[in-house]
């Protein structure tokens, strides 16, 4: 149990998927201009992470991993070369299904999250988590905690950055540094702050 908590804290703070592994930068930079967009996208990512990681984990276990096809009588088959395609297909499909389900059952939630869902299919953070899970050979609970934690960590960084950028609107920044340049530097400072969590041990 303690190990899972440890892993969760690690994936949210210390090895924040955005600040330590640089995953999901594109949508992070594009959607951190306004608070509402940022928190909407943040929730959507957490949601999709929680839903897709178990599916990807299962797909890896029963289809792609070396020797995973033993249940079908093919213990020697190694389909790991198909895993990239499989993961991205699972993510795209899950995002579509989630979109349809939300649209059907909660139009209000759809109105606030719906526009972000297609964006998420190509968010590298989600594919990154799937690949990390298969590379590090996490067990099911570990995979789930890691996925949810990474989603939460990503959303946290996104919302914090949106807050900073809103304040930044009042400051006088040199022309060429505006936008991408200053955002990068701020992200750097944030990453520096998050590194302090590395000293925590449970």
């Amino acid at each position, binding site marked *: 149990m303690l190990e899972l908590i440890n892993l969760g804290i690690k994936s949210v703070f210390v090895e924040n998927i955005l600040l330590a592994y640089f995953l999901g930068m594109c949508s992070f930079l594009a959607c951190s201009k306004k608070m509402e967009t940022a928190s909407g996208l943040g929730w959507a990512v957490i949601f999709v992470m929680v839903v897709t990681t178990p599916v990807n984990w299962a797909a890896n276990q029963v289809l792609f991993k070396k020797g995973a096809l033993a249940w079908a009588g093919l213990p020697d088959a190694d389909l790991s070369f*198909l895993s990239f395609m499989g993961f991205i297909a699972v993510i795209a499909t899950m995002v579509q299904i989630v979109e349809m389900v939300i649209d059907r059952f909660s139009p209000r939630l759809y109105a606030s999250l719906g526009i972000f869902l297609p964006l998420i299919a190509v968010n590298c953070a989600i594919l990154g988590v799937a690949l990390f899970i298969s590379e590090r050979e996490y067990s099911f609970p570990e995979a789930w905690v890691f996925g949810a934690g990474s989603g939460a960590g990503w959303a946290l960084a996104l919302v914090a950055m949106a807050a900073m950028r809103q304040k930044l609107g009042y400051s006088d920044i040199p022309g060429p540094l505006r936008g991408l340049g200053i955002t990068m530097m701020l992200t750097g400072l944030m990453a520096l702050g998050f590194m302090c969590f590395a*000293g925590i041990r449970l």
Partner: protein
Amino acid sequence: MPIKKESHLYTFGFALVICVACSFFLAAVSEGLKSRKELNMVQDVKKNILKAVALKNPLPSRSGPREVLHVFQEKIEEAVIDAQGRFIAGKKPDAIQEGEEAYPLYIYREQGAVVAYAFPVDGKGLWSTIYGYLAIEADGQTVRGVTFYKHGETPGLGAEIEKDWFQDNFKGKKIWDAAARDRVPLTVVKGRVKDNIPAGRQSFYVDGISGATMTCQGVSEILDRWLKVYEPFLKTIRKF
């Protein structure tokens, strides 16, 4: 016949053709490169063992997988010991089952004489499981070399354990106190050994990595745990 691009049938057909074509292409590439990839994976493990035992004639840095395998076959004998430190005859490390009380041992010989014994070590660092090999000289008292090849520690801090400067610190350190006739845990200190440890005991301690105290503590614990496991065997080779 005019093709209706937006008809359901065409869409399904197109998707099917693309998927099948891509899968076949990928399967062909993967199959074609399979033997090379497997060779790479096998030699990677052996390369790490060879690195830990610190070969007298080190491998050239650009040596290919075949050379690594060749040198490994020539110099290293694979054996398995039980919890009492006795050799299990005819057993190879690959045949060890999970949960079995059997431990792999790699024996490095140079012109027939044993130079070092190497064994795998693994355990928790700060964030991740660290994997490596530790090699002990034929006297059973001195570290010949160590390598850590897989871990998930903080890049730039804990991850320094995979660097040569850190691993080189272990060479020549003692795991046996000849005066007290007892084993000593090999410890990675905080900071430099020179500044922190009294002169007589410096050979039992290793320089730490600044900013990575927890990882270093993990390394000490891992090494000690496995040294305890292999102690019954090491006892048999010590001569006084």
